[in-house]
């Protein structure tokens, strides 16, 4: 009996003396091994830089240089596919599936109209206007799963996406934002902290003006009557019954809210200044300013 007791005490003692389990002594943690540059007589050696040459001297060749060959980037003097590429617009894709997931995980509140600022505020959608991201391209992946009644404003959407949203009684608008407005939408708070009046949204550039003025694409510059007609046409094409929206619907105001072609943020007009500290809004009184921000 005492022998057992002694044994257990000894075992406990040993256990106490053993090192604690930590990241340092577990195998296969998946943590990347940190490269340690060895020092000392032989541990140091060449520190993984190789023997002789540009690797060891760290005077690397310039990018694209092919040690005397005619470099690839200079080999073809005619590259018409790059013509005007610095003007081309990118639309960062977001699928309906992702959108539904954001809604289901309460990243997006559908009792408010959704726009680019909402998506950026989820923290899951990284817009980079510096890379000519002109907004969100809502793709039709997850069309069958999507089941939310929303009012959303995107920058690009195809027929199937539009149908998926309208089938659920929602509304979609495609709206263009110039690059300056995109910076504001990406981080509205940062803009308000700069103490500047909200600028106006500019008209779309020539290459996309027809897209945003066509009712088929639910363009924000299209005639609303034509849009409601196109909604009906699309429902017949895809074979679903267009849910009717009555004024008594609790979502009516949310679903009907649209931005003015000059407006950047929902509920805020161009020319207004937002004071985040005291939670106040200042509006211009000068007639000239009012006129400027209205046109």
């Amino acid at each position, binding site marked *: 009996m005492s022998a057992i007791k002694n044994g257990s005490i000894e075992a406990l003692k040993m256990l106490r003396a053993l090192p604690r389990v930590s990241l340092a002594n577990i195998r296969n943690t998946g943590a990347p091994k940190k490269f340690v540059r060895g020092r000392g007589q032989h541990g140091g050696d060449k520190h993984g830089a190789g023997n002789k040459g540009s690797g060891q001297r760290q005077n690397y060749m310039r990018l694209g240089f092919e040690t005397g060959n005619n470099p690839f980037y200079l080999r073809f003097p005619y590259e018409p596919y790059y013509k005007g590429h610095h003007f081309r617009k990118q639309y960062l894709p977001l699928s309906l599936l992702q959108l539904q997931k954001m809604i289901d995980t309460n990243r997006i509140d559908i009792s408010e109209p959704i726009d680019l600022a909402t998506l950026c505020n989820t923290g899951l959608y990284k817009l980079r206007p510096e890379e000519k991201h002109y907004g969100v391209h809502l793709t039709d992946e997850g069309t069958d799963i999507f089941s939310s009644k929303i009012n959303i404003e995107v920058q690009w959407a195809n027929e199937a996406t539009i149908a998926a949203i309208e089938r659920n009684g929602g509304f979609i608008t495609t709206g263009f934002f110039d690059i300056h407005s995109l910076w504001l939408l990406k981080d509205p708070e940062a803009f308000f902290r700069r*103490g500047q009046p909200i600028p106006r949204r500019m008209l779309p550039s020539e*290459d996309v003006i027809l897209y945003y003025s066509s009712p088929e694409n639910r363009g924000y510059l299209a005639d609303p009557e034509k849009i409601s007609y196109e909604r009906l046409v699309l429902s017949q094409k895809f074979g679903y019954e267009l849910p009717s929206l009555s004024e008594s619907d609790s979502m009516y105001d949310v679903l009907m809210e649209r931005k003015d072609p000059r407006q950047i943020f929902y509920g805020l007009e161009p020319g207004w200044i937002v*004071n985040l*500290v005291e939670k106040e809004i200042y509006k211009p009184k000068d007639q000239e*300013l009012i006129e400027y921000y209205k046109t």
Partner: protein
Amino acid sequence: MEALLNIRKFCNLNSSNIKTAVLYKNHFRPASTTNSVSENLIATADEDYEATQLKKEIEFEQKRNKSRLRSHHRNLVHGKIPYSEPVADIHLTHKYNRMLFGKYGKSSNVNPGTLWPTKSELQEMVEYEKIAHPFSFSELVAKQKKVVDEEEMSVKQRQEKILKNLQKLEGWKREIAARVEKKLADLAKAKAKKDALIEEVKRHFGYKIDPKDEKFKEMLVIKEREQKKRLKEERSKAKQERYLADVLKKDSK
């Protein structure tokens, strides 16, 4: 300088606050318990009750402050505007004051009216927009529609041309076949002629001679010349005959 003063007036910075003014004056001093503040203060405020109270208050405040931070850093930590008085040139700029208002709201003492563009700035903005965005919506649409229509037109024209050409295709195929046939026939004829000539030369020598031989080549040239001569004679003879026939015809008439 006058401009700077104007901006200062414009921004409506509150400089009458004695407390902040004193803090500003000492703001490069490391925090310590000794102070020469009292002398300064006596100079600015008379020996009335309020001033002494204020003096005490400042003293207490300084004693309580053990952070050893510079005043502007301490202000930043406490979410206040870093400088109550402009200390650098940038603090007199419109941009800085705008930022102050955005960050600290009303406590920045910036008049929100200054945040909008001035008349001249507005004019400049309008002028800029006129150049950057010269076209109205309807103009832009019309312009783009024209481009699209032109593109469609060119596609349509090309397709029409293709259809028209397709109808002619069979005829062109036949033409080419005929041309090829004719060319081949001509080639065969020329080859036969040449072969006959070579055969003749071989017959002249009476034995199998290599066509690359100098003698053969010479003879070939001679034979060719003869042939040409013969052809020429034949031609002139035919011409003469024709001429004679014409003359006889005329005479008989």
